[in-house]
């Protein structure tokens, strides 16, 4: 048994001009593309293309926990299943789940758990299925990015997204977002998952030899890359709802103009803080639920009448 052509290996990962095997500079990320709502049945789904990685993530739940004994009466549980397709890698992977996949599933879970409010889903499970259909180095980081998008797409309340990008050491130089060759032949690899706005780390692993100072510098590279990907994640989430808005509220209608005044097309993080969340005056908070049931009853007939005319 064996392959006719061995897997290609590259010794020199960076040339004398500081250019890497795929034409990037040391602090550049690979091409990144993402979309949400890509699958029909899942309650939330995302597709991420990060370099040569092609990854789907799908969310089901909150739903009943199987097996039952895993249920927690005080909070919900998050289950992540990271899997690679047999044909995603150079040498066919066995279809059975292996230890690496189980570990990455766990690492992804611990990265995403702090983003969720699991205490509001007692006795339930939120299940996320990740399928790597093409792998090109850094699949766990790209998976973290995809899982965060799919959870957000499913409408599950989140504190923030998680954005993954690896950084490593190739030929003695720190390189952002390692590709497959660099991942395998490089001297060190640090997969990072960022909560970009807080500049905090949700996923962290490390293999190789580096000094603490080098690693801190590597984090700087990684955060810069994650910031770019985070912006793309936000655009993908917005695009889906803008498409819905365009159907519900066609361009040119009054309400749409109002929307644009408020939000514009700025990323969420760049909007002034106080406009973003106006805290409701203390007294109103208790009163709102009482007011709301009355409101739709009163206003809807008018709205509908207007539409019919």
């Amino acid at each position, binding site marked *: 048994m064996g392959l006719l*052509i061995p897997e290609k290996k590259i010794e020199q990962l960076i040339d004398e001009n500081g250019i890497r095997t795929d034409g990037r500079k040391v602090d550049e990320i690979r091409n990144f593309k993402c979309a949400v709502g890509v699958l029909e*049945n899942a*309650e939330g789904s995302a597709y991420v293309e990060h370099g040569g990685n092609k990854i789907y993530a799908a969310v*089901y739940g909150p739903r009943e926990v199987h097996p039952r004994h895993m249920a927690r009466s005080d909070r919900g549980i998050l289950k992540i299943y990271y899997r690679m*397709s047999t044909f995603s890698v150079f040498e066919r992977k066995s*279809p059975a789940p292996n230890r690496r996949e189980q570990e990455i599933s766990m690492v992804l879970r611990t990265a995403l758990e702090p983003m969720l409010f699991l205490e509001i889903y007692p006795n339930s499970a939120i299940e996320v*299925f990740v*399928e790597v259909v093409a792998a090109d180095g850094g699949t766990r980081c790209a998976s973290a990015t995809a899982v965060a998008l799919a959870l957000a797409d499913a409408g599950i309340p989140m504190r923030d997204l998680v954005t993954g990008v690896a950084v490593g050491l190739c030929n003695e130089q720190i390189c952002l977002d390692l590709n497959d060759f660099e991942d395998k032949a490089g001297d060190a690899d640090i997969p990072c998952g960022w909560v970009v706005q807080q500049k905090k780390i949700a996923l962290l692993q490390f293999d190789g030899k580096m000094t603490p100072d080098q690693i801190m510098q590597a984090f700087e590279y990684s955060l810069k890359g994650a910031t770019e990907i985070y912006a793309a994640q936000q655009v993908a989430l917005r695009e889906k709802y803008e498409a819905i808005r365009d159907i519900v509220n066609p361009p040119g209608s009054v309400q749409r103009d109002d929307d644009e005044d408020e939000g514009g097309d700025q990323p969420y993080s760049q909007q002034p803080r106080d406009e973003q969340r106006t805290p409701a005056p203390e007294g109103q908070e208790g009163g709102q639920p009482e007011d709301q049931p009355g409101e739709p009853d009163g206003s809807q007939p008018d709205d509908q009448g207007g539409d019919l005319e």
Partner: protein
Amino acid sequence: MSEVEKVVSSIEKKYINELLKDGKRLDGRGPWEYRPISIEAGLIPKAEGSCDVRLGKSRVIAGVKYDVGSPFGDTPDEGVCTLMAEFVPMASPLFESGPPDESAIELARVVDRGIRHGDCINYEKLCIKQGKSVYILFDDLYIIDYTGNLIDCASIAALVALINTKLPGAQWNDEKGDAEWNGEYWVAPIEELPLTNTFVKIGDTICVDPSLEEELIADCRLSVCTNSAGLVCSMQKGGSGLFSLDEVYMCMNKAIEIGNELREQLNLWQYRKEI
């Protein structure tokens, strides 16, 4: 909240049934009409051949990988092609994670038999050295969206992934006693286009390419694989209902007719890779 089990209401069931009696269907199709089929081939760089096939909103991603190994004892001059299907739980709330269950195994076997008996692959061309060394092809199917009729969607995906397959050429090295690369590439020896058409029987009516609702309320199912020579290559009956012989005869003839239409419409040879 997700539905753990998909249930079709008796009102919907009755409605589908009555529409079918008039030759109509819930989604506006005629009884012998397929949902739209779209194919993207060659999307996975590390697979020898690959495709993403959508039949309506059912979706299968297929990839072919190769290995070089010993032939089976009873076919020393033939290569091997094995099929695997995985119902990825992302495809439907009805699927659970774990090893392939009986329906995933049935799916892979039905598609496999269609390809094996439809003279699709020239297995002799996959032989490198008689009795010693042959190509082994792994055609793996991942179901990532399920809205009915996975068998037909998977049969197209398995076939297109094979058509799309480009292999390194091999020669036998007597000194080493092993196969080695001859420096060239070739396309996998695909010679026929067997396609599977699945019919369901709902009450007394029969239609092709069932949607999820139709599949769930069907009494029984018949998958018929045909090739371009107008021959039936494999069949599989599923579901706990009964078919009359007339119905089976009609399904076979319809399958030959629809199979030929699909072969013409899809023009599957276009997915062959350039060498």
